[in-house]
């Protein structure tokens, strides 16, 4: 099994238009999906992220970052284990938010560092 980080990107402006009921219904669907992933042994952890934050670099000490301008922002991450990149991608493909077209997910393999 290899580890993967699923970066969830969504349209921030659209997301703010979602009604509270819709929001709750979406969370229920996601919870069910995560429960399934836990059952199949793929789920490790995950957190939602605020879509605003700070951006730091050498020449600009602190700013609200370029991401506030961006249409899409990373709104959460899920850490999973999977057989291979294809399976990780297939898992992400079945995320209810992806199926409904609300988010896109970037699937990134974690580089394993050999300690030997």
């Amino acid at each position, binding site marked *: 099994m290899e580890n993967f980080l699923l970066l969830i990107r969504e349209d921030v402006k659209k997301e703010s238009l979602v009604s509270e009921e819709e929001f709750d219904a979406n969370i229920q669907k996601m919870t069910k999906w995560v*429960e*399934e992933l*836990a059952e199949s*042994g793929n789920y490790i952890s*995950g957190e939602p992220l605020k879509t605003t934050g700070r951006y730091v670099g050498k020449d600009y000490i602190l700013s609200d970052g370029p991401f506030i301008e961006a249409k899409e922002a990373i709104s959460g991450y899920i850490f999973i284990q999977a*057989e*291979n990149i*294809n*399976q990780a991608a297939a898992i992400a*493909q079945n995320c209810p938010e992806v199926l409904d077209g609300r988010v896109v997910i970037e699937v990134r393999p974690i580089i394993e560092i050999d300690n030997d």
Partner: protein
Amino acid sequence: MIDTSEQVQQKVNHLYKSHYGKMVSSLLYFSQSIDLESAEDLVQDAFTAALLHWREDGIPSNPAGWIFKVCRNKALNKIKQGEKVRGFFENEDFDGIETKFSESPIDDQQLKLLFACAQPDFSPKVQVVITLKYVVNLKVEAIAKILAMSIDGVDKLLLRARQKIRDEKILFTEPDIFFLKYRIPIVHKIIYLIFNEGYKSSWGKEIIREELCEDALLMNKALLESGIGNKETAALHAMMLFNAARFKARFGSEGELLDLEQQDRSLWNRELILYASKFMSDSQGGPISSYHYEAAIAYLHCMAKDFRSTDWISISKLYHQLLENSPNPFVEMNYAIALYYSGQKQKSLDILHQLQQKPFLNQYYLLNAALGKINLLEGNYSKARTYFTKTLQQTDSQLEKDYVQKLVDGMED
């Protein structure tokens, strides 16, 4: 005698249910140049042909054989239309195969197909859906119902799986012996997930759900008997049997949900528990897997005379080890519940409150139900009510709602 249109329809429906998957898998195995999609089309065509011809000529003496021959002829035509003509079916003994079909509900062919479905490139959910469709032989409607998906959702999932099979030229063929071993963990996982789907209480006493558990057991048994299975297969078998032994006691006379404490333990199937113990001892002597821990937990529940005398200390230790093996917040919740009943109340509540902070878990109905129940037992009725109210909002199952509502009503007295 010409059969009535209704009789023909019934016969075809029956055959479709019992033979569809087997015919598709047979076509896949007989010719590598037929992909899954065309195999399905061919079998569909053959059934349509049966419906038309049998209305005119009556149902033949060997209906399954008739449809199978049509499949074969259509497959031969398809192969001839292609550039390469290979005589795939010439030397096959179809009559032998047809009798083999009816002998046993599970045969090597099905086991081979199960291994073919265990594609490491598919997500576990897709593996389960493909297995349910092609190995267990369920219709899309039934799959949608038991996996709480829409029919459209299952269709789309199958369509994407077929596209992937075509685009990436994934061969639905029996893997060689080396590959077979490599796929055993996935095969176990599929069987485990199918059993769990069948076991989930939220659906109530629907026949189809018990059938899923039986299917999982049959597939696992075939795996054990084939000699391909290992110690983990035996542990998985023991775990499923221990749980299946308690099946009958999980619902009351009105079909209502009963928790472990309320269940009439005399309804537990002693013979099945004994039978399961045999597999548990077979499973010893190798590496200890998650299935071993789960089997041991189920065993301890089966051995307890009543709820109170359950060995909660050992059960909580087993959950702890299960967590070390594969950390996951849902198992952690069960660990906390076992800790509560073993007397470690503070540690249990600390874990449950910690889990509440996790983004998905605070929306999880079972976590709120557990917190509700513990507060109820501790006499904190107002807190219990708050958690139960959340639970009621978070589950769609009427059976579960009724169960929680009963607990809430009980507090009023």
